[in-house]
Structures are given as structure tokens and as C-alpha cells.
């Protein structure tokens, strides 16, 4: 998929671009689940469904939030997820379950984990899968007990010879970890156990998100058998002021290359490993990660210089994205990231359409060559969905010009563009106070020419542009007389729909790329979601839009 950039020259104005791109149609499946585990008394969803996605993971109906326990077992991928069997808002939550052989087309199964015992009678909340050395999977998850306290439980497959692992049994020893007067754990802030990993002492470790006042922390527990757990005196890591740490994730990455690393791995003999700690911050509703090293003796995560596990840390995605979780795909030796994107519509709209929440496309994730950030890219299996292809090469875009792309289903497409920019020296210098890319993008909508740009895509656009969503770049000079540049990527939803009750917040991110090289922009357009990747996965922005005109064909 390498794109050739042709250096033939045309006539240049203030700034010009050559674009070489292609746009493809694609579609996936999530078979409608015919047997319901319980009757529901929600109003039947409206027949007209212009916003349901064609190739993003979502259940046939109702509310979904966090992805849970993603894993691969005997060649079959599993995704569990927080699901409300009774409606289109959060509540009555269970672990719904689907499987796939390609991460794109999914088959639903009955709910795997649902309230049945005192230790989860009031809720089966998020958790993770751990693959044991013998290959058997187990699930650690948060249960809500009769006193509405958060506790940690374990479940294992009832029948390992069922390749779909439909049924799960819960240990009578549950809850395995619970708040009490001795450990002083906050009973309403103790949840989301991670995938466990083995230490050199053959003991398992797991971390659980928590807080003590405004200190967010990852409580560490150790165990020899995954059943009897001991709380460590010190957390794996903490940060004062960041608030509750939800959905922590802790995993190794190779310093070089894009292969995945198994969660318990110590690395190959000549391999250098780094570790990633990620948290979802309740306060800001964003996911953040830090790079660092894992001190295995002290069981501590040590962030690299420049990284702090709070809201200053880099984000996986600068749009609507939360509760993300990775897993190691042993079949393809890669680490894969799942993330939840909720709706930007009102609850009434969600109740009317009968569903709420999607997952982003699973992304391969690895450490950038620079060692300073993670890169994400949609799994390659997505490309198998591509059908009709439209190719445009070597188009020159002058200031204020627009080039319409014909021949695709505009609501369901995979677009990849390469921009080659001339006259970089004409870029404006960025204001020193502009440190928040989201503010830069919000303050300057598409009609403002500043820096070099904007240049990018207008998607889900109605015929006369009453509605459109724009994803674009701006290039600034870092300083006067500097040859360093700052690239900003924006996803602007402010004109995305004539509907007024949508959340149309603009999103922005800095993209750490050198604009002397062609700038890449990929957008996955899928009815009510636009998932954009700048700089081949250096910055990701996911947004939700609900156009009233720019729908269907």
C-alpha cells in the first residue's frame, strides 16, 4: 500500500498540494441474534436506521460500553462487552459475547457473564481475560455485591472443547478481592482488573483501578494460583490529582519493530522491552498512556522522562474514545487495541433508534521508532472488505479549492490521502500560548486560513454543503526563522448535522510528523462515525456525526 508521490510540478499559488488517494467501499457483518435470553420491554427500535454502522462492531440493539476480555483462543477471536439487555442507556449491565475469525465479521452468543451470585448480583462490570501457560483462558471481572460494593471475581469456561466458549462458570471462592476495613480500599472505587502477568517468582500479578480522594492508583495484587490473592503494600503506580483510574491496562512492547509481545513476556534474549501503562480518567473521560520501564523487583512502573500518568499524557485517540483495552494476538504476533466510542446524540435519539455505543475498528498498536509514542493502525483484515476502488492521482489543490470524489458510497468508505505540501516557509508561526490542539481547531474553523491550511477531507457532506464533517491538517512554523514545524490535525463536527441536539465538539491533535514528507490522512467513514488517522497512525481522532441530509446514497 505504499503511495508514490510524483514530483511533477504544476502552477503554484500560495500553497499547493498534490494528492494521490483512493477511496473504497466496504461492509462487515454482525449477524442478528435471533434467540433473546430474556424478553425486553423496551420500545421497538425505529425501522429507519441511517446511523447504524456497516463495518464497526456493535450489538444488534441496546446500550454497549466498555470492551471486555478481548482474547484469542483456538484461532477464534472473542470480544465481550458491557451490555444493557433492557435499554439504550447504561444499566442492568452484563457481559455480552461475540466471536470472529477475522476481527471484522462477528457472530453473537448468549451473554457469558450476568448477575447470578451475591458477588455479582448487582452488576457484572468490566474486566480482562488472562491466557494461562497451558492455553486455557480465565476472566477476572468486577462484580457488584448486595451492598453495592465493588469486588473482583474469576470465571472460567465451562467447556473447553466448545471453541466458542459460550458458557462460563464462576468460582465458589468469589469474591477473590474485596474492600474491607483492613485494606482500606474505597468500596465504590475498586474496579476493572487487567490481564494478569507472571513474575520471575512465578507469581501472578494483576492491577485494579482505584482512587484515594484525588489520587488515582493501580492497586497490585499477587497470587500463585489466580484464586488466593494478596494485596501488595504499594500500588504499581499512582498520581495525585488525576482522580479515579478506570480501565487500567499494563503491557510490554518491543522497543523496535511492530510485533506484539505476550503480556507476561520478559522479551527475547536480545530484545529490549518497554512497558505501557494506560488509564481511563473519570474526570476527563479520555484514555491516556505513558511509556516507561517495569521494575520487576519493586513491582513498580517507572515512567520515562517527560511522561506523567495524568491528563497531560498522550492519548490513544483525541476524539470520542474511552475504556480501551489491548490484548496479545498470539496467532498473528501483534497487540491489538479495542476502544469504546459512545454516541454524540441525545438520549431520546438513542432510545428512538434503539441502540447506543460502538467499538472503534480494532487497531494494531506498537512503539514508534522514536520511542516517544505509540502508533495505531486499523487491522489489515479490514482491507478485505474493500470492494470498489476509486483512485485519484496527482491532483493539484490550490487555495480554497475543492475536489469532489465520485463513484463511492459516501457513507461507507475507507479513504487514504497523501498530501505533498510546497512553500512550507510561508507557514505562519504558531502562537506560543497555543498548546492545546483542540482549542486551536475549535477557534479556527475551516474558513480561517492560518498556518498552511486547512487542507484535508470533507466527509458525509450534503449536496450543497449544508452539512459536512471535515478532517484536516494545518501546518505552523514552531518559531520565527525556524525550520521546525508543528502539524495540527482537526476533526470538525460543528457543521456535521442540521440536528441541534448533537454534541458537535471539535477535536484536535498534534501530529508528530515532518511536513517535508507527504502527510498521510486515512478516514474510515461509516454512517455515523468518522475514524481518522493522521501521519499513518501517529494521531487518531474518532468522532460521531448524525447528518440529516448526508445519509444513504
Amino acid at each position, binding site marked *: 500500500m505504499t503511495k508514490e508521490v510524483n514530483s511533477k510540478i504544476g502552477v503554484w499559488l500560495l500553497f499547493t498540494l498534490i494528492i494521490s488517494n483512493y477511496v473504497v467501499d466496504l461492509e462487515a457483518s454482525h449477524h442478528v441474534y435471533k434467540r433473546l435470553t430474556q424478553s425486553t420491554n423496551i420500545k421497538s427500535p425505529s425501522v429507519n436506521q441511517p446511523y447504524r454502522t456497516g463495518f464497526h462492531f456493535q450489538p444488534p440493539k441496546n446500550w454497549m460500553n466498555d470492551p471486555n476480555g478481548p482474547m484469542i483462543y483456538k484461532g477464534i477471536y472473542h470480544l465481550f462487552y458491557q451490555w444493557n439487555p433492557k*435499554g439504550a442507556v447504561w444499566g442492568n449491565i452484563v457481559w455480552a459475547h461475540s466471536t470472529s475469525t477475522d476481527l471484522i465479521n462477528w457472530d453473537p452468543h448468549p451473554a457469558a457473564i450476568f448477575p447470578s451470585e451475591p458477588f455479582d448480583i*448487582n452488576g457484572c462490570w468490566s474486566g480482562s481475560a488472562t491466557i494461562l501457560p497451558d492455553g486455557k483462558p480465565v476472566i477476572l471481572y468486577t462484580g457488584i455485591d448486595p451492598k453495592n460494593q465493588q469486588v473482583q471475581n474469576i470465571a472460567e469456561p465451562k467447556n473447553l472443547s466448545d471453541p466458542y466458549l459460550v458458557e462460563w462458570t464462576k468460582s465458589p471462592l468469589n469474591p477473590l478481592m474485596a474492600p474491607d476495613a483492613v485494606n482500606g480500599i474505597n468500596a*465504590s472505587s475498586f474496579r476493572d482488573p487487567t490481564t494478569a502477568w507472571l513474575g520471575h517468582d512465578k507469581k501472578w500479578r494483576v492491577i485494579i483501578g482505584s482512587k484515594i480522594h484525588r489520587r488515582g492508583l493501580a492497586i497490585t495484587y499477587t497470587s500463585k494460583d489466580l484464586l488466593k490473592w494478596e494485596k501488595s503494600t504499594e500500588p504499581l503506580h499512582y498520581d495525585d490529582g488525576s482522580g479515579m483510574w478506570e480501565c487500567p491496562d499494563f503491557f510490554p512492547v518491543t522497543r523496535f519493530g511492530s510485533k506484539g509481545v505476550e503480556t507476561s513476556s520478559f522479551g527475547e534474549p536480545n530484545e529490549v522491552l518497554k512497558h505501557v501503562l494506560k488509564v481511563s480518567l473519570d*474526570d476527563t473521560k479520555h484514555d491516556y498512556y505513558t511509556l516507561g520501564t517495569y521494575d520487576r523487583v519493586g513491582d513498580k512502573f517507572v515512567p520515562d522522562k517527560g511522561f506523567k500518568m495524568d491528563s497531560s499524557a498522550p492519548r490513544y485517540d483525541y476524539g470520542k474514545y474511552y475504556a480501551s483495552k489491548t490484548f496479545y494476538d498470539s496467532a498473528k504476533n501483534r497487540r491489538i487495541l479495542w476502544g469504546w466510542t459512545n454516541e454524540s446524540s*441525545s*438520549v*431520546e435519539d438513542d*432510545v428512538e433508534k434503539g441502540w447506543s455505543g460502538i467499538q472503534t475498528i480494532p487497531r494494531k498498536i506498537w512503539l514508534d521508532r522514536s520511542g516517544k509514542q505509540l502508533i495505531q493502525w486499523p487491522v489489515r483484515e479490514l482491507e478485505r472488505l474493500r470492494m470498489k476502488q476509486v483512485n485519484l492521482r496527482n491532483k493539484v489543490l490550490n487555495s480554497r479549492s475543492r475536489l469532489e470524489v465520485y463513484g463511492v458510497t459516501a457513507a461507507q468508505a475507507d479513504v487514504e490521502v497523501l498530501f505533498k505540501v510546497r512553500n512550507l516557509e510561508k507557514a505562519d508561526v504558531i502562537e506560543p500560548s497555543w498548546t492545546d490542539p483542540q482549542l486551536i481547531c475549535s477557534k479556527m474553523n475551516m474558513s480561517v486560513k492560518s498556518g498552511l491550511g486547512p487542507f484535508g477531507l470533507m466527509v458525509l457532506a450534503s449536496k450543497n454543503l449544508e452539512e459536512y464533517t471535515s478532517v484536516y491538517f494545518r501546518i505552523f512554523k514552531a518559531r520565527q526563522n525556524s525550520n521546525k514545524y508543528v502539524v495540527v490535525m482537526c476533526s470538525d463536527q460543528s457543521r456535521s448535522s442540521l440536528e441541534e441536539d448533537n454534541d458537535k465538539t471539535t477535536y484536535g491533535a498534534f501530529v508528530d510528523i515532518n511536513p517535508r514528507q507527504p502527510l498521510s490522512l486515512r478516514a474510515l467513514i461509516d454512517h455515523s462515525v468518522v475514524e481518522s488517522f493522521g501521519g499513518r497512525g501517529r494521531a487518531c481522532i474518532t468522532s460521531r456525526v448524525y447528518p440529516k441530509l448526508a445519509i444513504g446514497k
Partner: protein
Amino acid sequence: MKMVVVMMIMMVMAMVSEANMIEQTCKETPDFNLCVSLLDSDPRGSSADTSGLALILVDKIKGLATKTLKEINTLYKKRPELKQALDECSRRYNTILKADVPEAIEAISKGVPKFGEDGVIDAGVEAAVCEGDFKGKSPLTSLTKSMQKVSNVARAIVRMLL
């Protein structure tokens, strides 16, 4: 006599500190007076923790939504020309009652306040959309504005639980 005085002083101190809890909490909301009046008027207010105060506010949202739906129903007869907007408002306020309120109650009670925040924020959104549908000629303005104000106060209190 001394015993009585000591007990009276203790009672007064207890009352003052409970009142302070409400005042301290309400100081951190966008509408102190509204917040205090909503919490003070509720018998549960004097002994509630932050979670409890949040749940009281959710209850006020529920009560206000019920009252607004009743008003919408009487308006169908009085102002039949407004049927379309009234239908939309009815849908919106039913959403507050049937989706937002139960979600907020479950979330706040179980310690995942962010979904409670979603619920109370949406109550304000639904009220605003309802109001907007009348295009400036709303017969429900005081009720919808009330909902938005209560929603803002509720949100501020729920955020303290995050």
C-alpha cells in the same frame, strides 16, 4: 441545667454542621440558592453524604419531569395548535423519566458516577430541545428553564463523586 445546656449546644452544633454540608456542597454548584432550597426542603438532605445529595437532586429531576408531563397533557386541550411540539416534548420528558433518571440512580448508588453525570446532563438537553421546538412561543418556558437549572446543579454535585 448544665446537662441541658450542653445537650442543646451539641444539638445546635450538629444542626449547624449538617447545614454546612449542604452549604459547602452547594457553594461548588452554579446556583447556590437553588441548590440549597432543593436540598434543605428534602428531609433526607440533613443527613446525606455527597452521594445522597446527588440522589436527592436526581429525585427533583424526576419530580420536575413528572410535573412537566402533566402540564404537557393539559396543554393538548388548551393549545391544540401546538400538538407537534407537545408530542416532541412528551417524548423528551418521557426519556428523562424512563432512561435518564433510572440510569443516574443506578450509577450513583453503585459508584460509577460518570453514567450518573450523563443522565443528569441529558435531562437538561432534553428540556432545551423541547423548549426550542416551540420556536420562541413556548408555554413551558418556566418549566424547561427550571429543568436546565436543576440539571446544572445536579451535574456539579455528581462531578464531586468522580
